[in-house]
């Protein structure tokens, strides 16, 4: 491997230098030259991802074995899966079909359970019947929000004596209308899920199911020798090949005391041409093939949380987070699976045009062969615990997946506003100046961030007293403007007995351990470090207590937290992470819990913030690593991206993939972390970031300063407008987040989610919806001033900035001068805005609203507005308002959604918030007069004629820098209707 070579060469040169220096021979010069050359050629390498630092499938023995198993199975036409259901072992009881499986090649026994769950979800669990020692099965306790109840709503299909086939399979109808059928084929073991008699998901269809049973090193040889004698060895994974009991990568050896223990299963989506999800990868939204097909990859998608320095785009390499959730979609039907496993996992994908199981006929393809997607899931350890979500619509999938893994936590209002970060704001004065820079430049900001340099020697929970002598005062002066501070708190602890966090955790014995029982030590920012074992509940509880205001010196309620490096990143470890044979709580090896480590830190921190004050407030914690269920705890970002156009472009598909996999609250570093963006890139990035859920600018310590006002005009104005537009739209964003909180719908949605029947949208990843009303197309190419945007269904849209109507179907050309990116208001939508942009979102809380109404072809529009206090959990007791706003029959009405809520106390706190302006776009006639009244009011006299303008070119005071070019815009002046009351605004023609 190269870096080591270079290192050792450099060392050799120094040795050479040493040996010759005294003799002063000419050789020195030559050696020095060579040495220098090596150093010089080495330095530029610092700027590129080191692919060789990370494993390929072939370098990961369990992946290699299972891929080989699959290859052998495919190469042999007579192959069949050796796993069969043991005769008479099957039992259907209380919504669970259970039974035993036998591997006919070695007679090893397994048990399986097929759970039929509420809401068209099914779960398959497979484990060894009597493993040598327990296999890891705790990830469900961390990842799932709740255990879903089994449904009692099912019927077993009676055996049809005429159908020979029915003797060797078990068929059960379940689900609400019993429209879902699951068929378990006994020999070989295969499971099919059908919706309306059409297969949706099949398991072990290609026979790649492989369960490496636990064995001792010596036993194993004998056993397998015997079994391979008596059975054909076709398709058998050679469990004891090289790498099974020890493997070395880049000079670092994994001792693998448990030997081979991988599990693998093939999951097919018959008739589905597109699959999505399994983040995090810098790849396309619609996932690519991975077995060398043209346009695809030759490596599987890898799920293994890793700190990848300057990651490459269009690559299936693993990144910081892992969500083994995959969604398949075809016209009219969606399905999804969750492979609940926290060990290193690889996923192969191939797409084949084929007519298996009579699919062409079922799907009315006629003679055209439908494309089916076949996937192969390979995990290093654990058990099979697979959830199948049967949709059938994307909305159903998100609800089903969310009901299991949790919905996006309702964020604090400030946290969806703008964040200003840099590695590093160097001291208190720096923070003051940046804070002040926003004010003088009239750019709002809600959060300033402090990276690792704010600490004493990277000891988290400490403040460098020279740089930050009075952190509380600093937070308080931010708080006057409604602003917050975020500090970084990482999981690695400097091994320094004078450091209280380390000392306490050492004494409490909650650190990750070496196999010999010592505390594990590795290298990270502070130098030699140890890591808290968050898989230990005692550790999580203790960790949470560290955030108590009296414990975390210098913290106030205005301080929030950033958990970085929680993959975990270990500079000295294999693949820059923790060795797999390191030991966690209950003696589990790190290999079992790797992908869940980061989320456990995230969860513990979030809980700590909730508990730190007497009035429970919602936490805000940003994490880099993530896993299934992260949406319950906070936000994530796409890690250390680069200041390049390609990385700006990649942010859309990455965030969409992460979003449909459950985590809506996600963003990418605005401007790009590494390198210096030119001003055009920076402007475009702000314009894009303003329409992504988590909106934070961040920069590496070696980059030039890039606060929004440092580039002069007109650039500052462009950036200012992008950020201000975000603030204007915060009521909409918050409403969409609340929707995600109760429905599981992603905050930003891919086109195929909004138009599931339009096949043209299935691969679109460069435009997306915020909620269901704003269509955004980021500009990600230098010098570009117009672009195509794809419109479905011949609907009407309006340019969000100019109100210009845009009609059509297919690719429509739209303008994108440097002042804006294309944002379209979907006809039929109503969006709440706040147009008095102040210094922070908190200062805008009680400001009046503007409603932007875009009328559709039927002359109608609808929207909603959710409001609560934005910081506590009082909304759970009904302290919120949720308005249903509808334009229909020339009337704009606001009524309360018929759900609990609307507590009087909360209403009192917002009693003065009114609608100050209504902008209606798309009316065809000139209004004669406009009336407004509160519905429940007997003040008839408030039914008054309102002032309005019609077709005025400038919509004054909109806070937007664009003026409308549409002459059919009605602007109603100050209807004075209060937002918490029911009201009607009537337009008379």
């Amino acid at each position: 491997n190269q870096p080591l070579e270079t290192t050792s060469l450099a060392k050799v040169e120094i040795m050479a230098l040493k040996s010759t220096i005294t003799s002063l021979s000419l050789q020195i010069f030559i050696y020095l030259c060579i040495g220098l050359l090596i150093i010089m050629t080495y330095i530029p390498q610092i700027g590129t991802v080191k692919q060789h630092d990370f494993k390929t499938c072939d370098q990961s023995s369990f992946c290699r074995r299972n891929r080989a198993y699959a290859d052998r199975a495919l190469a042999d036409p007579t192959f069949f899966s050796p796993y069969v259901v043991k005769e008479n072992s099957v039992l259907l009881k209380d919504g669970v079909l259970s039974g035993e499986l036998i591997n006919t090649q070695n007679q090893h026994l397994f048990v399986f359970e097929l759970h039929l769950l509420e809401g068209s979800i099914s779960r398959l669990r497979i484990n060894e019947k009597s493993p040598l020692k327990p296999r890891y099965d705790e990830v469900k306790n961390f990842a799932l929000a709740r255990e879903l109840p089994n449904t009692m709503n099912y019927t077993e299909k009676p055996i049809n004596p005429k159908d020979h086939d029915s003797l060797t399979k078990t068929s059960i109808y379940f689900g609400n209308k019993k429209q879902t059928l699951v068929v378990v084929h006994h020999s070989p073991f295969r499971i099919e899920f059908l919706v309306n008699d059409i297969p949706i998901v099949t398991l072990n269809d290609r026979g790649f199911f492989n369960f490496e049973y636990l064995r001792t090193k010596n036993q194993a040889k004998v056993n397998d020798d015997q079994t391979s004698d008596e059975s054909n060895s076709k398709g058998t994974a050679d469990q004891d090949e090289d790498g099974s009991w020890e493997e070395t990568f880049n000079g670092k050896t994994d001792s693998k005391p448990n030997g081979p223990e991988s599990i693998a299963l093939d999951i097919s989506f018959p008739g589905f041409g597109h699959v999505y999800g399994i983040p995090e990868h810098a790849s396309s939204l619609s996932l690519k093939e991975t077995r060398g097909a043209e346009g695809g990859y030759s490596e599987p998608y890898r799920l293994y949380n890793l700190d990848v320095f300057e990651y490459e785009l269009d690559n299936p390499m693993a990144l910081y987070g892992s969500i083994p959730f995959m969604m398949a979609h075809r016209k009219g039907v969606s399905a999804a699976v969750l492979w609940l496993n926290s060990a290193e996992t690889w996923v192969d994908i191939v797409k084949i045009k084929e007519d298996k199981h009579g699919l062409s006929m079922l799907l009315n393809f006629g003679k055209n062969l439908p494309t089916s997607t076949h996937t192969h899931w390979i995990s290093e350890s654990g058990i099979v615990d697979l959830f199948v979500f049967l949709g059938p619509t994307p909305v159903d999938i998100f609800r089903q997946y969310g009901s299991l893994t949790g919905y996006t936590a309702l964020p604090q209002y400030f946290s969806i506003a703008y964040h200003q970060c840099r590695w590093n704001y160097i001291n208190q004065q720096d923070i003051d100046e940046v804070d002040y820079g926003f004010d003088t430049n009239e750019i709002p900001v809600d959060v300033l961030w402090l990276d690792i340099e704010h600490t004493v020697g990277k000891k988290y929970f400490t403040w460098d007293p020279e740089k930050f002598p009075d952190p509380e005062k600093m937070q308080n002066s931010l708080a006057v403007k409604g602003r917050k501070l975020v500090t970084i708190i990482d999981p690695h602890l400097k091994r320094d007995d004078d450091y209280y966090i380390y000392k306490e955790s050492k004494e409490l014995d909650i650190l990750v351990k070496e196999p010999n029982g010592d505390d594990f030590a590795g290298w990270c920012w502070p130098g030699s470090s140890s890591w808290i074992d968050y898989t230990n509940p005692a550790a999580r509880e203790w960790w949470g207590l560290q955030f108590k205001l009296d414990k975390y010196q210098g913290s106030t309620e205005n301080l929030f937290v950033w958990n970085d490096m929680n993959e975990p990143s270990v500079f000295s470890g294999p693949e820059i992470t923790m060795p797999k044979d390191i030991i966690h709580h209950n003696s589990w090896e790190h290999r079992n819990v790797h992908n869940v480590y980061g989320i456990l830190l995230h969860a513990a921190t979030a809980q700590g913030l909730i508990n730190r004050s007497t009035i429970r407030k919602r936490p805000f914690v940003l994490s880099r690593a993530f896993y299934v269920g992260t949406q319950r705890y906070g936000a994530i970002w796409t890690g250390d991206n680069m200041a390049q156009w390609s990385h700006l472009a990649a942010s859309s598909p990455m965030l969409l993939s992460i979003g449909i996999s459950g985590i809506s609250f996600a963003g990418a570093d605005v401007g790009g972390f590494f390198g210096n963006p030119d001003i055009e890139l920076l402007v475009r990035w702000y314009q894009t970031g303003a329409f992504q859920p988590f909106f934070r600018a961040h920069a590496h310590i070696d980059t030039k300063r890039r606060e929004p006002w440092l580039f002069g005009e007109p650039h500052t104005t462009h950036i200012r407008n992008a950020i201000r537009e975000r603030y204007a739209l915060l009521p909409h964003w918050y409403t969409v987040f609340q929707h995600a909180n109760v429905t599981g719908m992603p905050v930003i949605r891919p086109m195929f989610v909004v138009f599931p029947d339009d096949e043209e949208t299935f691969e679109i990843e460069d435009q997306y919806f915020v909620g269901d009303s704003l269509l955004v197309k980021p500009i990600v190419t230098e010098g570009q001033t117009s672009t195509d945007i794809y419109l479905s269904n011949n609907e009407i849209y309006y340019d969000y900035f100019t109100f210009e109507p845009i009609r059509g179907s297919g690719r429509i050309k739209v303008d994108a001068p440097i002042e804006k990116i294309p944002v379209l208001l979907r006809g039929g939508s109503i969006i709440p805005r706040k147009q008095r942009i102040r210094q922070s979102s908190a200062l805008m809380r009680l400001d009046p609203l503007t409603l932007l109404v875009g009328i559709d072809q039927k002359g109608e529009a609808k929207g909603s507005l959710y409001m609560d206090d934005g910081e506590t959990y009082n909304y759970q007791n009904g302290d919120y308002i949720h308005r249903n706003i509808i334009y229909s029959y020339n009337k704009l009405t606001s009524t309360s959604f018929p759900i609990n809520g609307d507590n009087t106390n909360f209403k009192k706190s917002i009693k003065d918030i009114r609608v100050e302006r209504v902008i209606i776009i798309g009316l065809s006639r000139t209004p004669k007069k406009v009336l407004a009244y509160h519905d429940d009011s007997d003040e008839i006299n408030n039914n008054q004629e309102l002032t309005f303008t019609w077709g005025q070119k400038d919509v004054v005071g909109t806070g937007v820098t664009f003026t409308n070019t549409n002459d059919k815009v009605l602007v109603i002046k100050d209807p004075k209707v209060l937002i918490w009351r029911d009201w009607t605004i009537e337009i008379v023609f």
Partner: protein
Amino acid sequence: MFENHRKERGKLLDIKNFLPLGIYFLFLLTCLLAAEAKVSNSNTTTNRLRGIAKSKIYLYEHTDSDWVCLDGSARIPYDAINDDFCDCKDGSDEPGTSACSNGRFYCENEGHIPAYVESFRVNDGKCEPECCDGSDEYGGKIQCPNNCEQVGFEHRKHLREIARTQAEGARIRREYIEYGKELRLERQADLERLQIELLAAKERVKERKEVLEQAEEEERRQIQLTTKPNVARKALKKCKERVESLHERIDKLHENIDTLLKIFKDLKNDHNQNYHDMAVKSAIAGYDDFLKEYENERDENLPDELDEEDSQDNNDQDNEAEEDIAPPIHSPLEKDEPSLLESIIDTAKITYNDIMESIGLDAFTLSTRTEQKSVVPGTSKGVLVARDSLNSAENEQREIENQINDINSKFSKDYGRSDEFAKLDGECFEHVTGEYTYSLCLFDSTTQKSNKDYSSTNLGNFERWIGAESQDDPAYYTKQIYEHGIKCWNGPERSLKVTFECSPENKIFAVSETEKCEYAMTMKTPAVCTDGDEDDNSQKNVVHEEL
């Protein structure tokens, strides 16, 4: 097609210069709030005229017809002024509310000085320090006290203090200017004197050169009479050349080692510790190891070698001294000659002497280690005396020239409009921050010293004044740049900009690294203090008129 909503800022209050005082005022406000909250006696004016400066009220006078926005963009009913809805493109209809994003709100601040704040600060639930009368918050979200009396008092006190220090500073500055003038005159006088001396020295050199030439000519004639060029001399010359080139080689190699050591040292000092790059880390570790041994070796070995050479040298000299004959012109190179070479030369000399003797020219034999008798060119007494005398004359001339250059270079330095910075030339100041001590030697260089390991990094050398583009701009002499400091690892050469602010005392006020390896320093000095009755009252505004 796009509106640009940027607004003219209040001239009464330039917020950009407000930061330090702003913080001071926040503090003040907190104190005052704690003391006695005096509820604002806000609305003596009607709502309609809220937020309008007295001088502008005539623009909002009630007439029977509609009111026209101040930019003429629209005609609105008079009642629409300050009705909390933005009607005018320029925001002029809402001076007293937050409805227009581009409006300005006027605080009367009776007892203090009036101020404008942006509309978005009106009724935002936060008391603006600029509106000490609390008039910006009338919406009921918060009660803002009227502190103007106290704030005004403090402000006036502050202004007096500023005026005092400014006057004191200006007095010192006048001394500096006086000093500068005197210095200039002194230097002028020195220069004139030196120039006369230089002429004399040049004349002397010329004369002595002639004397030397004559002496040499005489000597040459002598030698030509008695000797002929011989083989040994040539060999000797060749040997010398060879030795010389080997020495150069060695020096070159030493230089190369030093260069590499410097590269490694920089790599060690400047590498980004936050790149977890094991290769760099191990290279540094290797360098440390090497350095330790290298230095040990140097400590152990080099002195021995030197001793050896020294003793050899001493021997030579002893021998030569014994012979009581002036040694050959002693080039520093020869000092290091290995003994082998010496013996070759000796052999050559002996051969030559043998030949000389054999033909009866004993007088022309060369001195060897044991025997030196002959005259070597350039060693005759007359020549030596003449050369010495020329050398000393030349030295004198050089000395004078150096002094002249020195004065000229100081003359060419720009000490400010009235030479007010001349006093500070070469003066050094230090500033201790947590990790580093910064030092600035004016018109010379600036360094950063680590308080941990006392390593020192040059941040740059004086380059020029950069306070403004044009020298005529009063701000020109308020800012200097020091450039071409030590290059950063993975970054530019370090540089530092120093901004001068008025104070009776010279001291560095603050230093920060504004960009990677670009430093900004604020230095207090009387050199920029003016009190208005200067001949150049240009720098009046160096101390900002805060509030």
